[in-house]
């Protein structure tokens, strides 16, 4: 499903550059659930952002379903994200000027779905996650666990094949963390491919494979 070859990425740092990814190679099969671990600043999130089509590498190849993502323009990348990727950001971010339904329905707006379609699909995904009772609630009225479920609902609303999650259980208590991981496993059983970025061994333990980023490259463990 995903094939990454010799991916390199650097960021400007003053007048020089910091090379974060120094030739990453990675293959992910459809239906996999993998964890990417590494120290802070090791490039985990950078790799995830490239896989999501949010960022472009300096060099290397990224193939998704054999389609070359690294050659796409920004608008093509946006379409790629809309069709294929569900992204869960760390610290469960939601837009606080929107209620839960509006937050979850945001990707559907970019897909130019009608109000009726949005209403139906948002209700469906909230039902699936068992949080339909939160639908009209404002974001600042949600607990951490509820907010993360809403963020997951937003990631799932377009029925993507690939879920990318950046520290999905960070800042959550143990019980809520377990609930979220159970949810991830359930989604994986339903056929979703999941890539988690985490520095938590408990989280990594539920995944089929764990990769480490060390010295800018991926190490299989």
């Amino acid at each position: 499903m995903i094939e990454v070859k010799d991916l390199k990425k650097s960021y400007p740092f003053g007048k020089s550059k910091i090379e974060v990814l120094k030739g990453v190679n990675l293959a992910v099969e459809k239906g996999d659930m993998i964890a990417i671990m590494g120290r802070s600043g090791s490039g985990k999130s950078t790799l995830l952002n490239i896989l999501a089509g949010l960022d472009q590498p300096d060099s290397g190849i990224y193939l998704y379903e054999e389609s070359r993502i690294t050659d796409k323009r920004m608008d093509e990348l946006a379409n790629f994200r809309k069709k294929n990727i569900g992204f869960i950001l760390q610290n469960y971010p939601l837009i606080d000027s929107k209620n839960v339904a509006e937050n979850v329905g945001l990707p559907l707006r970019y897909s130019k779905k009608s109000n009726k379609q949005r209403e139906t699909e948002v209700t469906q995904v909230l039902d699936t996650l068992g949080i339909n009772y939160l639908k009209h609630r404002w974001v600042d009225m949600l607990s951490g666990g509820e907010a993360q479920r809403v963020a997951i609902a937003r990631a799932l609303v377009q029925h993507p094949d690939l879920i990318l999650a950046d520290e999905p259980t960070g800042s959550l208590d143990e019980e809520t963390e377990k609930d979220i991981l159970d949810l991830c496993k359930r989604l994986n059983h339903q056929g979703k491919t999941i890539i988690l970025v985490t520095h938590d061994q408990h989280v990594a333990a539920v995944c089929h494979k764990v990769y480490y980023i060390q010295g800018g490259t991926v190490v299989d463990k």
Partner: protein
Amino acid sequence: MIYKEVKESIARRKLFTLFIMIGVMIFLTTVTILIQSYINIMQKEALIDSFEGLNVYQISDTLLEDDDFQSYLNEPNSLERVKSLYEYLEDDINEKFIYNFEQPIEMSTDIDDIEEEFLQGYEEGNPLPPAEDEDGDLYYSLKAVQLNEQAFEMFPVNLSEGTSFTAEDFHHANNPGVIPILLGADYADTYQIGDTLHVNYLFEEFHLEVQGFVESDSFVTSPQLPETYLDRYIIMPAQEFEDPSDNTEEEFQQRHYFQMINGAIYSSEERNVVEEEIESAKAAADFPHFELMGYSTTVLGDFFDAVEENIYWVLCLSIVLLIACSLSISTLMIKKIHDNYRNMMIHLISGGTMKSLFQYFLAEVFITVGIPGAFITFLFMTVLQDLPPLYVLVMAASVVGMILLAVIPIYIQFRRLTISMLLKREE
């Protein structure tokens, strides 16, 4: 989608947006004042040009004491001599002799037939009360201005309706007892062309025949009154009269001519040259009781210098406001960009692009400037109905200019902001 995002964004910083909108409205109000001032100047440009480089010399008779005046009147040919002086000033002097004099006309009428705004003293809040004659008839003092032929040619008194004064109208010969008049624009609802007003002018009965209406906002000027707007005035030609047939008429003409010689000379010459001209006039008319009182640059010139100075300051204020408003908008938007990295990220992972994010900010600037822009333009178009169609264009250009000035820093900020930077900052 854009509308919803902009609405939410504005709602997040309502007060600041309101502050900017007020700033935009103040800016556009100053632009309106500027436009009005320019229109004012442009309308009077012809007049300013005709006064360009001229000094004004006030002239007056010296018979100020009543005894002196009576003594002169008892001299032989006293009326002929003063008439001769006036004719010399009108026809033979090498400079412009301008007679422009405000002299109320008394008209017997029912107060219900006449608007109070036409009464002398109305603008000062003190309209003159009516005078009562021996028959118990009430006479109301109407504002009137007399212009000699040169003054009428010099001032841009254009007609909206009717026929203007001809050279013959400045001579009271063909139609005794009848004086042709023009009326100010505000009289248009009260009288029509051909109507006759029965009046008392300098204690003599006359019929004033309406032969036209002057355009709105027409004005004349004199050293004493820089701008006399004619909208509420009766405009009379300063007429020359044939020899009087009786004592009553002679006394009237004495009053009339002594009034008319107290005009002003407009000249580019130095004082001594004008004094020589006056001496020649005195000698030719055998009227020694006459002198040059003083001179100044044209009052209207000074007046417009002051107006231009005001325009300069209004222009400075407009530029300052334009920059301040544009900077405020840019600052607010850039602050919003910095505060919204997280939200921008959410939009990006939901399928948005940097281009769509920039469009939201652009739309917000359009709304923040456009709504007060449209409101102020509509307001002034309604209140100030004489604004030219160009006004809308100038206001639109001002709004577009402000939007461009505000958007440029935001655009630069977006150009610098790559998704990678956004992601790193969000982390």
